[in-house]
C-alpha cells in the first residue's frame, strides 16, 4: 500500500453516468488484484459541497509494465483501470480530471477474490456498478488460461436496462482495456431488469436458470459484486445450493486502511467486520446481509 500522485491517462464516459478511469501505476508497487480497491482524492470539488474524504473505487483492470499494446501512449509504466459511476460530489469531481492531471491515490487496498480451485468453475456475477471487479476477475482468469490449465468461468452481468450497458455502440473509448472489456461483455450472460436485453430478471434469477442447464462437471464457485440486495440473494442462493461464494461488499469509508472501524458490516458470527481491511471480498456467509440492508 502506498500514497502517490497518479497521472490520469483516461477519464471518459462509457455509458450514461459511467466513466472509465485509467492512471499510471508506480513501479515497485505490487499489482492490484481483482476485488482490491484504491481510494482517491480529486484535486477540486464543486464549491458548496464541502467534500473532503477520499472515495473508494475498485480496480477494473490492470496492465503490467511490459505490455505492448497499451491503453495509453502517454506512459510506459503499468496502468490501473477503474469503472465508476458519477453519483455525488466526489465522483463528479473525479470526472472533471482531464488526462494529464494528477489524482492522489492510496493503493492497493483490501483483499481480492481468491482464485477458483482447478476443479471449480467460476460463476462471476456483477450487478450495475459492481461490473468493475468482476470484469477484472474474468480478465485475470482468461489470461491465466494460457498458463495453468484453463480456468472455466461464466460471466453473468445484470443491468437495469439495455441502454445502461456500458461500452456499446456510441462509446468512444477504444483503448485496449475497453476492447478487452467489450470482448468479455460479448461473452457474458446478460440480464436486464426490464427485459430490454438478454434475460429478463435479476442476476440471481439468471443463476437459477443457468444452474438448471449447466452441463459442466465442475463445482460452481460464485463471485459477486453489486448492490447489497443482490449480494444478499446471492449469498442465500449459494447457501441453498451449498456453493462456495465470495462477495465484494461496500460500506462508507473514512480511513480505508482498517484504522477507524467505520466501514463495518455485521458478521454472521456476531460482531462486525471492516469492509476495507477484512474485505471488501468476504466469503458470502461471513456477512449478515439481511441485517446489513436495514
Amino acid at each position, binding site marked *: 500500500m502506498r500514497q502517490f500522485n497518479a497521472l490520469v491517462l483516461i477519464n471518459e464516459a462509457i455509458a450514461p453516468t459511467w466513466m472509465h478511469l485509467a492512471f499510471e501505476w508506480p513501479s515497485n508497487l505490487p499489482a492490484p488484484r481483482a476485488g482490491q480497491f484504491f481510494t482517491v482524492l480529486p484535486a477540486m470539488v464543486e464549491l458548496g459541497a464541502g467534500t*473532503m474524504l477520499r472515495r473508494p473505487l475498485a480496480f477494473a483492470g490492470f496492465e503490467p509494465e511490459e505490455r505492448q499494446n497499451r491503453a495509453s501512449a502517454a506512459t510506459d509504466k503499468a496502468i490501473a483501470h477503474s469503472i465508476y459511476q458519477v453519483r455525488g460530489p466526489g465522483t463528479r469531481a473525479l470526472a472533471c480530471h482531464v488526462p494529464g492531471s494528477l489524482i492522489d491515490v492510496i493503493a492497493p487496498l483490501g483483499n481480492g477474490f481468491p482464485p477458483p480451485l482447478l476443479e471449480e468453475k467460476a460463476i462471476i456475477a456483477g450487478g450495475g456498478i459492481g461490473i468493475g471487479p468482476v470484469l477484472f476477475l474474468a480478465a485475470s482468469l482468461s489470461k491465466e488460461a494460457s498458463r495453468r490449465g484453463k480456468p472455466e468461468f461464466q460471466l453473468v452481468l445484470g443491468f437495469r436496462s439495455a441502454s445502461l450497458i456500458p461500452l456499446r455502440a456510441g462509446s468512444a473509448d477504444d483503448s485496449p482495456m475497453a476492447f478487452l472489456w467489450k470482448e468479455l461483455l460479448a461473452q457474458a450472460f446478460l440480464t436486464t431488469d426490464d427485459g430490454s436485453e438478454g434475460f429478463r430478471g435479476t442476476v440471481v434469477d439468471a443463476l437459477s436458470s443457468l444452474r438448471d442447464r449447466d452441463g459442466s462437471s465442475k463445482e460452481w464457485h460464485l463471485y459477486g459484486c453489486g448492490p447489497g440486495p443482490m449480494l444478499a440473494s446471492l449469498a442465500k442462493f449459494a447457501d441453498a445450493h451449498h456453493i462456495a461464494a465470495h462477495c465484494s461488499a461496500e460500506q462508507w469509508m473514512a480511513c*480505508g*486502511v482498517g484504522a477507524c*472501524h467505520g466501514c*463495518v458490516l455485521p458478521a454472521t458470527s456476531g460482531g*462486525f467486520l471492516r469492509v476495507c481491511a477484512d474485505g471488501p471480498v468476504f466469503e458470502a456467509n461471513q456477512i449478515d446481509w439481511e441485517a446489513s440492508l436495514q
Partner: protein
Amino acid sequence: MNGQDTKRTPSLDLDLSVRIGQLVMSNPVGVASGTFGYGEEYDELVHIDALGALYTKAVTLEPRQGNPAPRLVETPMGLINSIGLANPGVERFLQEKLPLLRRRRCAVIVNVAGSTEDEYAAVIERIEDHLAAIGPRQEERCGVDGYEINVSCPNVHRGGMSFGIDPVLIERLTRSLKGRTARPLILKLSPNVTDIADIARAAEAGGADAISCINTVIGMVIDTEKLRPAIARGTGGLSGPAIRPIGVAATYRVSRAVHIPVIGLGGIARADDAIQYLLAGAQAVQIGTALFSNPRTPHEVLEGIVGWMRRHAVQRVRDIRLMLQ
C-alpha cells in the same frame, strides 16, 4: 515517504519538544485517538516514529464490538462517526497491541474509556500491573507513556459522557486515577457543555497533568431518501475542519483557565490550523480526521510549523502560545 523528508529537515536549532508532566514528546504533533488504531494500519503510509505522540484507540476493560452500521457519514468539511469504542479490551490490548507499540519511538498515550469510575480505574491498574510485571526490556520503549482519559465520547450510552459534563465527577475521577499511575494523566474534554473551562478546572483540581481539547461535537445527518438517520445510532460525533473554530475557541478558553498544558485538536488539516491552536494556548496538537483525507498530514503540519517558526524567529515551540497579541 513524507515522514522521511521531515527527518531530513534540519531543525536542530529549534526546540520542538513538549513536556506533559514528566513526559517529553519530541515534537508537538500527535495522531488522535480512534483515528489511528494502535498504529498498525497506517504503518505503510505514515512514518510513525517521527510523530510527537500516538494516542491509541480507546481501551476499555471488556472488549466492545461497537455500534451498529452504518457508523460514518460525511458532512460539509466534517465527518460524523459513531464507532462506539469498538476495541479488543484491555487484556487483548496488552497481549496483541502493546508489543508493537513498545517498538515505536514516539510517545504512546493510551486512550482509556469506561462506563464507571471503577472501569476506568481497572483499565489503568491492569496496564500498570502488566508493565510492572514485564519490567523494562532492552532496546524497547515502555509502550505506555501516559493515559488520555476519554470522558467525552458522545457515541456510547455509558461511555463516560456523563462524566464529561459534570465538574464534580471529573474531579473525583481524575483524583482516583491519578492515585493509580505515575504516568501523565491527560483528561480529554467534550465541547458539548455550557462551560468547558469549568470542566478543565475540575480536572486540574483533581490532579490532571494535561487537558486534551476537544473531542467530537454532537451532530446528526438524516438520509432524506431512506427517511432515517444516516448513521445507525442517530446522532454521532462531528469532527474535521468544520469544527476547527470550535476547538480553537475551546482551547483559548481552557488554556486561560488552567495552568497545566493543553493539547489542542479538532479539525487540524494544515500547519496553519495547528499554529492557530498553539497560538490559542495549546502546547501540542493532535490530528484525527484529516489523516483519512491525507495520511501525510502530521508530517506536513510539522514541517509547516518548523517553517513558520523560522519565519517568525521562534526558537521553542512551547513559546508560541505566548505570542498571541
